[in-house]
């Protein structure tokens, strides 16, 4: 039964991600960056909680709010457009920022 709620939470997380990223035409994909940082912080906080509600929120909503596939696609597209420096900066900000936000969330509740 929990899978129904995880699916609904996943649908909601994906929709929020789609709406935040929609219409952004800047060279740097701010939408993906913002949702990944926010979701990482939220999931870091959620490590302190247990039970079905925490599972639905963390695996469903926060998991679907963030995305690796868009990040990988956007980085690949930058490299193909010969924007190597932008790709390197985007990768660096995403990795250090996301892990840093997750660490901050873990530390706040730990």
């Amino acid at each position, binding site marked *: 039964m929990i899978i129904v709620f995880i699916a609904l939470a*996943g*649908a909601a997380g994906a929709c929020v991600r789609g709406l935040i990223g929609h219409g952004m035409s800047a060279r740097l994909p701010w939408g993906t960056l913002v949702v990944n940082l926010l979701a990482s912080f939220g999931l870091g906080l959620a490590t302190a909680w247990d039970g079905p509600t925490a599972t639905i929120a963390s695996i469903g909503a926060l998991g679907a709010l963030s995305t690796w596939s868009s990040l990988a696609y956007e980085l*690949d597209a930058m490299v193909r457009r010969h924007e190597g420096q932008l790709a390197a900066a985007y990768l660096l900000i995403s990795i250090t920022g996301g892990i*840093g936000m997750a660490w901050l969330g873990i530390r706040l509740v730990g």
Partner: protein
Amino acid sequence: MPLRHLLLIAVGGAVGTSVRWLTTDLSAAEHHVTAILILNVIGSALVGLMAGAGFGPGTVRSNLVWPLVAIGFSGGLTTYATFAVQVASRLDTDRTTAGLSLSFVTVVATLFAAGTAFSFGRSRFP
């Protein structure tokens, strides 16, 4: 954003998230990191393949398929947040090498998957 695109993202996101949940739920706890890595690689390859085959954003073909499969399904199947917490928790418990290794392997594997799948899609479905 058109409402039909939002509905397609919701359907794809629900299915992708469910597949991710089932994969981790059916795998042993010590294999969760590997399971998430594999899902992230598969999702990245799927989006790369679609873009290479001409279904990328801004194309005529992308109209319905991109929101459903790329933004919805692959976005729900893959997860950045889980990866970030897996790495951060290792760094936080002095397992620095494990955390950095997971970061390196994930970045290299997902980018290789997306790039290779893009090239394959472009050559097979010009």
